[in-house]
């Protein structure tokens, strides 16, 4: 997706003092990227633990609610860090990110991954045993886990592929 107004917005953003600072200070982008990938590691580790529990592979001696409670904060508290560091990279190179089809795909996958996360956490918040009472619910939980894992893996892959669709 590439529209005239997006072109204009990118052109404006590139000229802002913050963007200029990011573009001309050599250490900012590598530092921000390092923080971004460490934050992704925290999310991926937590997502993996919850999803493997949803699949019934790990930590079966603990309730899903307990496992989710332990790792959920790492997902939600890390997302703002990812958002902030991601935005700094966007401000530094708006055309390379905002107008990149892979970046747009990554954002769509992110929205879907957040929706998948909420889809098991919201019922779990109302009823701690929600996903464990019937076999059909256990089946749905497994499907959510697989979809969630695929979405997060897709986000990491898309993040790397942005660099290979350089359209700036």
């Amino acid at each position, binding site marked *: 997706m590439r529209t005239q107004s997006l072109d204009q917005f990118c052109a404006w953003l590139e000229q802002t003092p913050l963007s200029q600072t990011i573009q001309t200070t050599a250490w900012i982008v590598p530092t921000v990227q390092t923080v971004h*990938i*460490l934050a*992704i*590691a*925290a*999310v*991926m*580790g*937590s997502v*993996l*633990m919850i999803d*493997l529990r949803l699949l019934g592979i*790990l*930590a079966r*001696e*603990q309730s899903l609610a*307990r496992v989710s409670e*332990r790792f959920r904060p790492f997902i939600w508290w890390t997302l703002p860090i990812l958002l902030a560091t991601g935005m700094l990279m966007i401000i530094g190179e708006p055309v390379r990110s905002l107008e990149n089809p892979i970046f747009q795909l990554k954002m769509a996958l992110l929205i879907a991954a957040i929706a998948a996360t909420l889809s098991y956490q919201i019922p779990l918040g109302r009823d701690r045993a929600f996903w464990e009472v019937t076999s059909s619910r256990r089946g749905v939980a497994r499907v959510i886990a697989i979809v969630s894992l695929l979405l997060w*893996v897709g986000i*990491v*892959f898309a*993040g*790397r*592929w942005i*660099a*290979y669709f350089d359209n700036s």
Partner: protein
Amino acid sequence: MELDALLRSLEATSIATAIRENDFLFPWVESVHVLAITLVVGSIAIIDLRLLGLASLDRALTRLTANVLPCTWTAFAVAAISGALLFASNATVTHTIPIFRQSSSFWHSPVSTWRCFI
């Protein structure tokens, strides 16, 4: 020099050549490498926070390591293999990068720490 000859022959292998010359193979292997690293760091952090007494205190350390370390080791194996492939595809250049030399010696210390658990 012997090392140069070795790196050149590594770079000339068919798999290294394929990764270097194919437009999409390098990014695919690199994506797998990055994914594996995030899983190594993310999972070992769970164990480290438990060892520090900061998280997962309601679970016995042995239970936690039995669950988490297989994920860490699997991800580590994938990271090592994909990293070796990326290195091989550009061996003569990569081995001259100072940061690369440091990072490949750094991983000996986490590996020896994890060995305490197995």
